[in-house]
C-alpha cells in the first residue's frame, strides 16, 4: 500500500497506516506528520520525507525505514521492532526504550537513550553513525548505545553530561579521547578496538544497512561507559 502524505493531517495518515490490511506500507512526501506507527506490530513501513515527532512510539515489533530525517522522541518507549533512519534524528530518540533497535545514519539530538532499560529477552540498542547532543544515556538502566562519531566538522562526538544518573546498560563511543568530563557515576574504559560480541555485531548491522565498510568502524579506539552502581540512591536516606 502506498500513501501520499502530502497535505494529510497526522490523524488521517496515522489511521490509514494503522488500519491498512497490507503489511507493506510506503509513505511518500512525509512532511512532519507526528505519531506515525505508534504501538504498531507486524508491519513494514517505509517513509520518504521527514517524519514528525514520536515516530514509532510504543512500537511493538513493526519495522520502519525513513529516507530522510526524523524529529523528536523517535521510538519513545519502544518495546520491539526496528527503526532505520537514512538521515539524522532529533532529541530524546529512544526515550525509555525497552526492546528493538534504532539505527541512525547521521547525528542525534539531546537526551538520546534516556531511561533506556532492558528486561529479560528485551535488550534495546541504538547505533548512531554521527555525533550526539548532551545528556546521552541519561538515567540509562539497560541496553546498549553505540556512537560511531562519523563526522568531519571537528566537533565533539558526544555532548556534555553523558550518562548522568546512569545505573545500568552500556555505551560505546568511538573516539580517540572522550571529549567531556563524565559524571561521577559513570566508569569509562578505553578499548583499542571493538571486541567481538554484541556491540561489534550491531556495528556490522549498521554498516550493512548504510553500505559502509565495517572494518573502518571496528578497528578503532572506543570508550566503553558503564555505571558504577545499580543502586545510586542507596546511601542517600535516613529513616525518619
Amino acid at each position: 500500500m502506498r500513501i501520499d502524505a502530502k497535505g494529510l493531517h497526522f490523524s488521517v495518515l496515522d489511521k490509514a497506516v494503522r488500519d491498512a490490511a497490507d503489511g507493506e506500507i510506503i509513505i511518500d512526501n512525509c512532511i512532519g506528520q507526528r505519531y506515525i506507527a505508534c504501538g504498531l506490530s507486524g508491519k513494514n513501513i517505509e517513509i520518504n520525507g521527514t517524519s514528525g515527532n514520536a515516530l514509532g512510539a510504543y512500537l511493538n515489533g513493526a519495522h520502519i525505514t525513513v529516507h530522510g530525517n526524523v524529529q523528536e522522541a523517535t521510538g519513545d518507549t519502544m518495546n520491539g521492532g526496528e527503526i532505520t533512519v537514512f538521515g539524522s534524528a532529533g532529541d530524546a530518540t529512544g526515550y525509555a526504550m525497552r526492546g528493538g533497535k534504532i539505527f541512525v545514519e547521521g547525528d542525534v539530538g539531546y537526551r538520546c537513550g534516556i531511561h533506556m532499560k532492558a528486561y529479560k529477552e528485551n535488550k534495546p540498542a541504538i547505533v548512531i553513525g554521527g555525533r550526539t547532543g548532551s545528556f546521552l544515556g541519561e538515567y540509562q538502566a539497560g541496553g546498549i548505545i553505540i556512537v560511531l562519531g562519523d563526522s568531519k566538522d571537528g566537533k565533539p562526538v558526544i555532548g556534555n553530561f553523558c550518562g548522568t544518573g546512569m545505573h545500568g546498560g552500556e555505551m560505546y563511543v568511538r573516539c580517540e579521547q572522550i571529549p567531556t568530563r563524565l559524571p561521577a557515576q559513570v566508569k569509562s574504559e578505553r578499548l583499542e578496538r571493538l571486541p567481538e560480541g554484541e556491540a561489534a555485531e550491531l556495528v556490522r548491522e549498521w554498516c550493512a544497512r548504510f553500505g559502509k565498510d565495517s572494518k573502518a568502524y571496528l578497528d578503532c579506539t572506543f570508550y566503553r561507559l558503564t555505571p558504577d552502581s545499580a543502586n545510586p540512591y542507596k546511601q542517600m536516606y535516613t529513616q525518619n
Partner: protein
Amino acid sequence: MNIYIQPEYEVVRDRDRCIACRVCERQCANLVHSYDAETGKMQADSTQCVNCHRCVCVCPTHALKIVKSDDTYKINGNWDNQTINEVYRQANSGGVLLSSMGNPKDYPVFWDKMLINASQVTNPPIDPLREPMETQLWLGKRTAKIERDEKGRLKNTLAPQLKLKVPIMFSAMSYGSISYNAHESLARAAEELGTYYNTGEGGLHKDFYKYGKNTIVQVASGRFGVYKDYLDAAAAIEIKMGQGAKPGIGGHLPGAKISADVSETRMIPQGVDAISPAPHHDIYSIEDLRQLVYSLKEATDYKKPVIVKIAAVHNCAAIASGIARSGADIIAIDGYRGGTGAAPTRIRDNVGIPIELALAQVDQRLREEGIRDEVSIVVGGSVRSSADVVKAIALGADACYIGTAALLALGCHLCRTCQTGKCNWGIATQRPDLVKRLNPDIGYKRLVNLVTAWNHEIQEMMGGMGINSVEALRGNRLMLRGIGLTDTELSVLGIKYAGESM
C-alpha cells in the same frame, strides 16, 4: 558518635493479662517483642516500635497498648522533640530524612471549615430511600461538535468517557509500593463497585489484566511496564506529572524492593533501582505534554480517555488551563496531604498546597476561560470521608480519588513507615510472610463496604440539599458556607461565610 534517640511511643503490657502466647512476637516484623525463657515473660523493645498497632489488634487478651512517651526534652515552643530528633538523625547519618504517607503536620484542614446546606420548607429535601438519587457519572471531554451523516442521523463525535457508578476512585498506588494482595483487593473492589483503581507507575501484573475495564494505567517519566498490551488493557491512561505528597520529586523504588514479581511487572531487572524522576525529560511545555497525550491516543486508537495528574501547587490554576488545552480528557489534582510509599520528609511536610484551595481555583479558572467542559476534574489528597467528597464536588470536582482511606480499610494504621517495606498489615511490603496477612477476599469486601457506605451518605447529604444527582451538585458552591475562615480564604474558595444568605 550516634546520639541515642528515645522512642516516641512505648509499648505497655498489662502483665496480669499477658499469657505469653507470643503472638505479638510472631506478628511484629520490627522485632519489638521477645520471650524471656528465664522469667517466662514477654519483653518489648520500644526503640523498634513504629506504632502500627498490629500487636495491639492481634493480642488475644488485649494486654497491649502503645502510648506516647512522656519522656521529653526541656519544653520549647520552637524546638519540639520531633524537630530536635530530626537534627540528631541527620547529624548521626548525613542522610535525607525519609518518611511516608501524607503530611501529618497541623496545617488547617479546609474541608473542616466548610459546612453543607440543607433544604427547609421550600425546595424540600429528597428521601434517598424511596426516590432515585443518581451517583453515577461520566468523566471525559464534554465538548462535541454536532455532526450528522448523509441520512441526517447524529454521528457519535463524543470523546471516550469513563463511567463511574460512584464518584470515588482508588488513587494511584504501584505494585512495589503496595503488595500483590493489596492490588488484588483494589482491583476486585473497583470491579464490584463499578469504578476504577490505578496501577501507579509500577506496571500491571499479568494476573490483573482481567480487571482491565476497571483499571487506570499510569505512564510516568520512567515508563515502567508501559507497552502496547498495558495501554490496551486499561480503561484510561494517566500521565503522572506530579504527586501531592512530593511535588517536584520523582519516585525511587530501591532495588531491594524489586522482587522477581515486581521486576516482571515493571519490566526491569531484579535488584536494580527503579528511578522515575520528577521531570519528564521530553516535556518542557504544554505543547510537549500534548505530544505525549496524543502519542498515547494514537497508540490506543482514540478509544481511551487520557488523564494528566499534577500535584496541587501555587500556580495550578494556570497549569490546569494548559492541561485542558493539551488534549487531555481529565485532570487529576493531588493535594499536599496525599499519601506516598516514601518521600523526603521536608518535601512531604512543606511543599504544595491544600487540595480544597487548588480545586476551587482550578475550577474557577477553567470556567472563566470557558474551557471547563474540555476536561473533567478529579481530586485527591486527602479525601477522608463522604462529607469531603460532597464538599469537593460542590467546589467543582467531578469525582474524587481516595488512597489513604482505602488503605485504612485494608488495615493500615497510618504508622507512616511504608518506606521500610516491613508493613505488618501486609500492605506496603513485598515480604511473602507479611503479604499473606492481607487476605484479598476480605480486603476487597472491606473496600466495597467503605465506598458503599460513603455512597449512601453522599445520597443522604444530596437528598438533604434537595439535589438528586452528583452532576447537579458539581460546582454548586452555594451549597457550601465557610466557618472560621478569613476573607481571603473565602474568596479563594469562592464561598460565602456561614450565615450569609444567597
